[in-house]
């Protein structure tokens, strides 16, 4: 940003310093602003030696100066053409990225964004696509780390203010304050709600949503699901309150939607758990089914809900269905070990069920 501003100032002082347009174009590429970069390079191509006024003391000096400027313009045009070629390649890569995203080929999205970001490290759309791809591929820890890293680094370069919410407080919170922490007596999981809220405001709307998805899917939610849900609820409540004070912006609408989702999810899950505890298995089955439809972005929560529904199905003697739900649970979160235990038990019981049927029939047939 500072480079662009300095180039503008310098060009005002000396319009013949046309190489500054190239520098400006390159700075825009680094910022990920492709259209202004295009304009900057195109200005160089439009330059002509006759566009500039020369006030030499001797006539012979004018010719020399014109020749020198012509040389500068020629070499600048070559550089500008190279810059435009690079820009075209980047635009093609962005088009490809959009296609890959629409095809939901997230592994390829990661490769494509890596390529774009190596040339244009602050290209916002690629950053968002990369964070989204990490979440879609269930690399939630990577998504969280990536968003924190780019936000903090861009905040140091004053770029982040372009995307942050006006209420965001800089400098960004430290990474340590954004980690989930295990607490003892009573055992649980906690996080600094204020720091996370400020971080989401600093990160900006689109990346903020991806940051929240990564936060929901923290590994420890396998063991402290209720704690994670409650903290996410607190974060969203605080964010919603803060945003309601400001002028409503469409890009932050997701906050209130997510808040109503988490409210509903906590309520249904608590009801389902209670119904299961009270051996009201049919009702618990329906409640877990409803809970599963509320928030599909929270995969690790879904894994727990599927596993709990599998336990309910086991209690109802629906072993094949229980096995299917355990499969779903493992698909959602392959690291959720309790789903393996439940599937092992479901297989075991259904196996005994079948073998006893078989033996019983044999005993009849042998009579």
């Amino acid at each position: 940003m500072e480079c662009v501003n300095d180039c503008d100032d310098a060009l005002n002082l000396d319009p013949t310093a046309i190489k500054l347009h190239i520098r400006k174009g390159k700075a825009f590429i680094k910022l990920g602003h492709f259209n202004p970069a295009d304009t900057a390079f195109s200005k160089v191509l439009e330059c002509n030696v006759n566009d500039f006024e020369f006030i030499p003391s001797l006539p012979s000096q004018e010719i020399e100066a014109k020749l020198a400027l012509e040389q500068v313009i020629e070499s600048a045009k070559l550089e500008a053409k190279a810059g435009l070629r690079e820009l075209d390649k980047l635009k093609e890569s962005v088009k490809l990225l959009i296609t890959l995203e629409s095809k939901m080929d997230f592994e390829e999205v990661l490769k494509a964004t890596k390529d774009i970001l190596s040339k244009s490290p602050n290209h916002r759309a690629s950053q968002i696509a990369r964070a989204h791809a990490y979440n879609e591929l269930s690399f939630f820890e990577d998504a969280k780390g990536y968003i924190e890293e780019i936000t903090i680094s861009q905040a140091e370069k004053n770029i982040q203010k372009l995307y942050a919410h006006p209420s965001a407080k800089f400098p960004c919170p430290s990474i340590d304050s954004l980690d989930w922490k295990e607490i003892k007596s009573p055992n649980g999981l906690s996080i600094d709600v204020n720091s996370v809220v400020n971080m989401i405001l600093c990160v900006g709307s689109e990346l903020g949503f991806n940051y929240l998805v990564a936060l929901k899917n923290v590994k420890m939610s396998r063991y402290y699901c209720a704690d994670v849900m409650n903290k996410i609820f607190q974060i969203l409540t605080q964010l919603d309150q803060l945003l309601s004070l400001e002028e409503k912006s469409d890009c932050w609408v997701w906050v209130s939607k997510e808040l109503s989702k988490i409210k509903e999810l906590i309520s249904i899950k608590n009801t389902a758990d209670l119904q299961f505890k009270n051996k009201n298995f049919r009702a618990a089955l329906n409640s877990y089914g409803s809970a599963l439809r509320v928030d599909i972005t929270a995969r690790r929560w879904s894994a727990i809900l599927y596993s709990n529904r599998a336990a309910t199905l086991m209690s109802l003697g629906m072993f094949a269905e229980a096995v299917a739900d355990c499969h779903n649970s493992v698909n959602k979160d392959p690291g959720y070990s309790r789903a393996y235990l439940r599937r092992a038990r479901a297989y075991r019981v259904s196996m005994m069920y079948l073998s006893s049927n078989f033996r019983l029939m044999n005993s009849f047939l042998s009579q």
Partner: protein
Amino acid sequence: MNKQNESVRDYRRYLNSDPIPSDFKDVQKELSEMLEAKTEEPKKHQSSSSQHQSSYQNRPNSGKTAFDDMKKVIKFVFTLDHIFLLWLYIFRILIQDNPIFRISIKQILILNHQMVLGQGQDLIIIITPNQIPQSSNLLMIDLSHGVIILKKVY
């Protein structure tokens, strides 16, 4: 067989998970019981048919009732958490001892649905023999919280 392998694989995955599960010992015991049952089953199967035949043939003279046997079996079943062996055994006694209770395979399969239950649930089995009018004679076995009640309802 395939399900058994899947089950063993999943048990092992759970036991090898990180962090070590808090119920590691219980699950490990559960797995070893399952593996023991798997190895003992073929041995039993080889010798069981002749022994069973003779014991059931001699039963009327032994002074034991089906209920006495059932109590033993139920105890065994509970310690092994092996609920499906229970109803198999009950039927074996009822069917082989008492021709009046012979029922068709179709009815047994229907009965499976009545017997479907989960761990810790009450088990209520209602047997409706086809040779006895349903309204006049029902045998009811009620296992509530580990207590065995055998009722003959007329």
